[in-house]
């Protein structure tokens, strides 16, 4: 009995066991099916997603920075170039103790306190970069020394790079500008313009001047190399390569020799000079004094040098030619004369008697002439030659402020010329509407009087005045002033227009033009305000002197230069063109705080024109003052 029961139990037991085993088998099949389903999902359904991810893992796109385009003058003289050199760069993320690392680096290569300060500055300005230069322009010995010790410096590397260099230094500083390291602000701007991709790997961007305005042409197109990398980021092999497109070489309209002569002619004076070819708008010289060494900015300027430049009373960083706004003074008179003729308010023969002062009807306020006692009988021709103020006071009243405004703006005053450089100032031609809007005040006849001789609210930039002079010289036809002659079109970016459009087309009666030009020629002849500067020119030299007041002079007071603080002294102006009958060059010269146009500004213009027309290289001699010129306001 017992045996039977055990036997039955045994069979039951086996039955139950096999049942459980079968369930286990089902369990295994279910789990295996889950795996197969998962594998099908990953390897078939999501295959392409993961292939993309795998490629993203292994393919690193390495940018190849294009060589920046050169900048050369109209004769092919290089003004901005690239040279290759070595930098010592630190990746702070890979360095444990930064200060200690720099200290021990300093035992190998020369690292000055300035280098350290600059390094700090560069780091704070650019968070997007991960490697920052501590030293530039290592020499071969330094490179060799570091290379032998580099195992001691993880996170420190020597990199071969192209550097920007400006061989003419301060002489072209305000013209060419400079490139600088891309900072966070630049980067944000690039991202906004959708250009960040093209700047991958680029360290520099144009910050100011031509370098900035023509950035898109100079930079070129970044090339790319697809490199297969392993998990540690080491390159294994190159998969494909898209070569970079170097930036365009820019040919400027500038004649750098002319630019140098203009620079030298200024000596230690502050000021600006803009020379234009009136027949096509090409800018021949573009000077702002003092300049600065743009090379300082390329590698990141250190704080001390920057402060010295930025806080200098001479404001060397200020582009006077482009941005400086000054009252035009008497240089406005030829344009005023044309306005008077055009509006029939004056005839060439009409003359006034100049007693040395001018009063408005019903007022005792005296507007004085620069010459005590006056010039006597003055017609239009003489008014320009001797720069008679009284003549223009009356003309201003007859034209009215809006009459002057409407005519002067036709010469491009009061608005940007459209020069192909960013940052231009617009100047100001006052009008009743302007004063109402600006000051919410009515216009007073007294305001009109000073506008007539280019004082009061009137403001021009040296560029504007040069342009207006060019328009006058070219009989009323104004080609838009420009600095870049041409750039071969090969980048992906649309190029700016290099054929200057005609912006100004004035219908001026030939006899009017003839009179004004003849008078301007007489300015540089004996009896004129620029007679000394014009003597022995050997070509017909048309010009006009001017002085712009820095501080007002009280009633009954006489302006005496030596009594006035140097920086409150008047600015000297000169505008001119030559040869007068067929002008090839027109210019405006400003010399700050130096007094009269005829003695200081006109000789500078003469030297520039002498070189341009005759190829004459001047001996550098200080300008001589004549009695007439010294006296002229």
């Amino acid at each position, binding site marked *: 009995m017992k045996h039977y029961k055990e036997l039955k139990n045994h069979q039951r037991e086996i039955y139950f066991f096999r049942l459980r085993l079968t369930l286990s088998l089902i369990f295994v099949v279910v789990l295996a099916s889950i795996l197969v389903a998962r594998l099908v999902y990953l390897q078939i359904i999501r295959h392409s997603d993961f292939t993309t991810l795998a490629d993203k893992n*292994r393919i690193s796109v390495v940018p190849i920075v294009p060589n920046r385009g050169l900048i050369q003058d109209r004769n092919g003289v290089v003004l901005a170039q690239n040279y290759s050199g070595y930098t010592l760069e630190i990746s702070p993320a890979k360095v444990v103790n930064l200060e200690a690392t720099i200290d021990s680096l300093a035992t190998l290569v020369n690292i000055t306190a300035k280098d350290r300060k600059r390094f700090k500055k560069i780091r704070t300005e650019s968070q997007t970069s991960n490697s920052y230069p501590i030293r530039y322009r290592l020499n071969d010995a330094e490179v060799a020394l570091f290379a032998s010790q580099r195992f001691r410096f993880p996170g420190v590397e020597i990199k071969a790079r192209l550097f920007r260099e400006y061989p003419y230094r301060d002489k072209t500083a305000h013209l060419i500008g400079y490139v600088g390291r891309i900072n966070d602000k630049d980067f944000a701007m690039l991202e906004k313009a959708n250009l960040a991709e093209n700047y991958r790997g680029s360290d520099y961007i144009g910050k100011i001047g031509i370098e900035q305005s023509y950035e898109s042409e100079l930079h070129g197109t970044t090339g790319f190399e697809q490199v297969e990398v392993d998990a540690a980021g080491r390159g294994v092999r190159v998969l494909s390569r898209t070569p970079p497109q170097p930036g365009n070489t820019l040919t400027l309209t500038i004649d750098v020799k002319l630019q140098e002569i203009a620079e030298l002619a200024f000596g230690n004076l502050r000021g600006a000079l803009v020379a234009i070819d009136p027949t096509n708008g090409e800018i021949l010289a573009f000077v702002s004094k003092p300049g600065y060494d743009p090379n300082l900015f390329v590698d990141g300027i250190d704080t001390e040098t920057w402060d010295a430049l930025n806080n200098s009373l001479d404001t060397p960083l200020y582009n006077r030619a482009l941005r400086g706004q000054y009252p035009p003074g008497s240089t406005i008179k030829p344009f005023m004369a044309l306005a008077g003729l055009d509006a029939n308010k004056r005839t060439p023969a009409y003359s006034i008697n100049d007693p040395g002062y001018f009063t408005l009807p019903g007022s005792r306020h005296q507007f004085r002439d620069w010459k005590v006692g006056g010039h006597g009988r003055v017609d239009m021709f003489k008014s320009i030659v001797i720069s008679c103020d009284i003549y223009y006071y009356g003309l201003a009243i007859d034209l009215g402020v809006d009459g002057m405004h409407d005519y002067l703006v036709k010469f491009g005053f009061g608005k940007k010329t459209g020069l192909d450089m960013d940052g231009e100032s617009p100047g100001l031609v006052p009008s009743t509407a302007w004063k109402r809007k600006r000051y919410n005040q009515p216009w007073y006849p007294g305001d009109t009087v000073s506008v007539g001789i280019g004082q009061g609210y009137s403001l021009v930039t040296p560029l504007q005045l040069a342009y207006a002079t060019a328009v006058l010289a070219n009989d009323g036809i104004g080609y838009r002033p420009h600095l870049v002659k041409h750039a071969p079109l090969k980048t992906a970016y649309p190029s700016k227009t290099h054929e200057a459009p005609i912006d100004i087309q004035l219908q001026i009666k030939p006899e009017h033009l003839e009179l004004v030009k003849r008078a301007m020629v007489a300015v540089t002849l004996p009896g004129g305000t620029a007679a000394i500067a014009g003597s022995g020119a050997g070509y017909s030299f048309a010009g006009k002197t001017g002085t712009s007041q820095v501080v007002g002079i009280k009633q009954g007071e006489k302006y005496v230069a030596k009594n006035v603080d140097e920086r409150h002294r008047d600015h000297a102006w000169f505008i001119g063109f030559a040869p007068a009958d067929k002008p090839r060059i027109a210019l405006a010269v400003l010399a700050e705080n130096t007094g009269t146009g005829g003695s200081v500004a006109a000789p500078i213009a003469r030297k520039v024109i002498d070189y341009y027309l005759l190829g004459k290289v001047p001996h550098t001699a200080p300008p001589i003052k004549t009695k007439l010129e010294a006296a002229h306001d």
Partner: protein
Amino acid sequence: MIKQLQRRFTAHLDPLLISGLAALMLVSLVLIYSASGGSMDRMLGQFVNILVALAALWLVANMPLHYLIRSAVPIYILGMMLLIGVALFGEIQNGARRWLNLGVATIQPSELMKIAVPLMMAWYFERHEATLALKNYLVAALILAVPFALILRQPDLGTALLIGASGFYVLFLAGLSWRVILGLGLSALASAPFVWHALHEYQRQRILMLLDPSQDPLGKGYHTIQGMIAVGSGGLLGKGYMQGTQTQLEFLPEPTTDFIFAVNSEEFGLLGNLILLAIYLFIMWRGFIITANASTYFTRLMAGSITLTFFTYAFVNIGMVTGILPVVGVPLPLVSYGGTSMLTLALGLGMLMSIHSHKTLVQS
């Protein structure tokens, strides 16, 4: 004469199991060579592991079953002592106390328990076969629970879960009532929050990472993501032998050990994976046959547990690499590089063969 020797040598080796096993070992060598970037050293090391494992397998397969039964208690006691030793004097590596330095060698006693626990439980059930009551299941559960808890504390979640699984399979095959299984399942669910609380931070991280591997792609989720990328990018036919970019460019972590399945997936594709799975299922099938035909209670439980545990290894590893299970550090059975796991698995398979070949002997 030679033929006779050969016959004696192979008498206890199951040809079907051996061929499945050999296939896996061959796959192992092929994959390790690729995963180590064409290094002979790593492959030769694994070859030695294989030889040692095969020798152990042959020994166990030729061992009469009563040796096995008799060895159950001493092995279990030895294992427990070593585990307690680990808890008290163990060496800490990578934040876990798993190793015991015996002076001559550093061993990982939890590996031994993979065999010892089911062996002990099967032995216990065999002894009480005639009078099985709930009490016996409780005792058996205790045999499992103590080493399980010790290993979990080390902490070694992967090994603990595998031992837990192998023990559970014994309980299940021994006829644990459905009510208890259901009750256990429910209480496991209910206790999940407490278990979560008891888990080590890195274990929680692994589970969280499984839910969303992308939240820390270069940190803890990196392994899972890179594994899935390798598997997914392999596609249907794979990138070709030694052509897997994830593997060859070292994006894949642990390519010779825990993530070797991803190497197979990347270089041989879904097709290669299905073949590999087929080999495992073939071994499974053979294991089930042997289990079903086993003659005694002990051998049935033992064979069943070994077979199911072997598959569990494979499932957990593949599940981990393909991102459906957390990364718990379970090797792919007989394929991943490593002597210890290879040896443990070979011992288990050796027992299966022994159970099959000594069946008639025991019955008679």
